[in-house]
Every structure is written in C-alpha cells, then in structure tokens.
C-alpha cells in the first residue's frame, strides 16, 4: 500500500488558480503520464449534541465510503469507519434527524512520474476557491522510509521550500514505523479541511 502525504499550500485565495498553473507547468516539464481527474468530496453532518460526522468519498477508492467522527477533544483518537458505497445511503439512517451542514469539494489533475503519483487540486465550497492541496504518493510504506524521499521530491521538482510545515499534524505525530493505510490519507484531508474551516470562520469573525 503506497504512502500518501497531503501538503496544504498556504497562499492567498485570489492567487490560487495562478499558483496551481505554475505547479502543473513544473510537473508537465518532466513529461509525466497524465491520469484521470481526481475528486474528493467531504460532507459534514453537524449533530445537535456536538458530535459531527464527516463523510469522505475519494475517486481513487471509488467504491469506498469513509465515515469519520470528529473527536470531542483534540487528544482523542480519530475514529474512521470504512465501508462500501452503501454506507453513504445508510448514513442518513444513522443520523436520522441531523442535518447536512457543509460540503467541500476538491477537484484537480493527477500525474504519474516514475513511481510517484502527484495530485494537485483546489478546494471549493459552493463554487468558490478555499485552498490548494498537493497529494503525493509513493510505493514505500511508512514515515521512516518515505519522508526523506518525498520531501526531496517536493523540494526539487515542485520547488516548495517549507514542506515540513505544509504537512498535517497527524503525519508529524504518527509513529515512524507504522504503515500507512487509505484511512490515514483521509485523516490528512480531514485535518487540512478542518484548518481551512477554522481559517474561514476566523476571517468571518474578523470581518464582523
């Protein structure tokens, strides 16, 4: 199972399309193999008694649905339930009476360069840009093996210098020899989406 790192590129919202284009140009210059468009959909069900459920659909795992419970305190472990696509329709039954709060979409292009898979996508909410994410997968399996290789790839081919800060806290905390699973990819998305939401809420509060 390949290891996947998701990098969040912190950049002003109005510069997102431009910067994404430059990143794609840098990758295109290496003559990669173009893959199909990729898509990640996150739906947040906000419960009344403070437990929110995040439902993730990823185009790489097209027949799988990930359901993630937001921990009440940050120290708690994040619980991810992986099920087949029927879980998406069953989610309504589980959360009878709880309303859909928010939907985030990530659409972007994917490339394959040697053993690396690079995905560059923009997060949109109600068709307005929110942020820019870069996902890189490699055939190694744990932090201990892949960290140096992936960081070197990002720095040399994408030209991003402060790559360590762009990783989510979850990756930094994870044990170096623990193997990566698709659930870990989803948790990284959750971390980044959550930070974006908190940013926007901060912005809103600042405007207000």
């Amino acid at each position, binding site marked *: 199972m390949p290891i996947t790192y998701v990098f969040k590129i912190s950049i002003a919202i109005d510069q997102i399309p431009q910067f994404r284009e430059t990143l794609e140009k840098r990758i295109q210059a290496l003559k990669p193999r173009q893959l199909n468009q990729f898509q990640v959909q996150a739906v947040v069900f906000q419960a*009344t*008694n403070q*437990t929110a*459920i995040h439902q993730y659909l990823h185009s790489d795992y097209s027949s799988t*649905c990930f*359901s993630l*419970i937001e921990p009440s305190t940050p120290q708690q472990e994040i*619980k*991810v*339930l*992986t*099920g*087949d*696509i*029927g*879980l998406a*329709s*069953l989610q309504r*039954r*589980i959360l*009878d*009476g709880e309303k859909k709060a928010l939907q985030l979409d990530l659409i972007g292009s994917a490339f394959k360069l040697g053993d690396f898979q690079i995905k560059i996508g923009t997060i949109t909410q109600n068709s307005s840009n929110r942020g820019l994410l870069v996902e890189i997968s490699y055939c190694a399996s744990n932090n201990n093996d892949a960290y140096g290789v992936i960081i070197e790839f990002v720095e040399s081919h994408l030209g991003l210098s402060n790559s360590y800060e762009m990783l989510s806290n979850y990756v930094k905390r994870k044990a170096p020899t623990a193997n990566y699973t698709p659930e870990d990819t989803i948790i990284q998305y959750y971390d980044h989406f959550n930070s974006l939401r908190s940013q926007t809420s901060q912005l809103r509060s600042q405007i207000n």
Partner: protein
Amino acid sequence: MNEYFLVGSVLDTVKDGFLEILRGLCDNPENKPIEFLETEYIFSKINPNGSSVSLRARRVGSPPDQTQHCHLKYVGGIDQKTDKVMVRTYNDCLTSPNLNEYLMALGFNLETELIVKGYLFHKGHLKVVVSKIFQPSSAGEPQPVSNSHLVEISRTGPPGQTTMGESVKQFADLFKPFVRMERVSQVVEELNF
C-alpha cells in the same frame, strides 16, 4: 431498497429432512448448503426529536474471534398495507471491523447480542435462511432460545414491485406441507386465539 419477506419455523427434529427438500428446490443441489455462524448486535438510539433508530451489526464467528469485516444493516417497520408478503425498508453495507466502537462513539446503546447458526440457500434472487438462535450466557455455552429453527425467505428490490412479492409467495407455497410461511401479524393473531 425494500425487502420482501416471509417467516416460518421448523422443529429441530425434522430440520434435517427439510434441509434436504430445500437442497432440491434451490440452486446448486449438488453442493452442500452454506453454513454460517454469526454474532448479531442490535444497537438503538433515541434521537433528540423523540424518534428511535435501531441498527443491526453482524460479524462472523462468536465473540472472541477476530474478524476482517462487519455487516451493518438497517431495517424499518413492517408495512401493514400489503397482504401477501411483508415489506420493510432495508439498507446494508460492509464495513471495517471497528464498527462497534464507531456506533458506541455516536451514542448508540447495545440492546441485545445473539448468536445465529444456520444454513443459507439461494434460488435466483431469493434468499432462504434456516437458522437457530442462541443467547450468549456468562457460563460460556450459549443457550438456545427455542427448540425450533427459524425459516426466512427474502428478496430485496426497489419499492412498489408487486411481482417480487408474488415470487416470494410462490416459492413459500412449495414448503406448504412442512412449513407454513406466513406474515408475522397473522401468526400473532392466531396465537392469541
């Protein structure tokens, strides 16, 4: 999705003969029926607005065994309007083994725990299950609930399909001399009188 189904029961003493008849009636009579041993957990939760939800989680084997996946099922109330077969809404999916923790974290309570041991047959899209239900006890040996086996014929499909209900009814009629497949409400009525 809706489930069209009928239930009946057969005594333990005549179970073996009934299984032979089912082998003849269903697909692949040359093969032995599929045996299974599963543990079913029934979870329920009362929502803030007053309605209650119950979910059924199943895993292969009896409790101490480790499994690779679980089965999560939602069944609604029985629709009383139809006369031939019972109809209820039905949703299910396969999940990772941490299903119980997930449901507990969402505020569900574990109501009952049952061990189901039985045989599975299929005829086209029809599913026939002959199973015996046990109740796990602290002593170790699970206790049987009754001295008979539960027989269930079911088929899932989109709602409002009368032909599906008829196919279930027709197949159930083949069991007539041995097992009476009826709607649960009728059985309850007869028991009362």
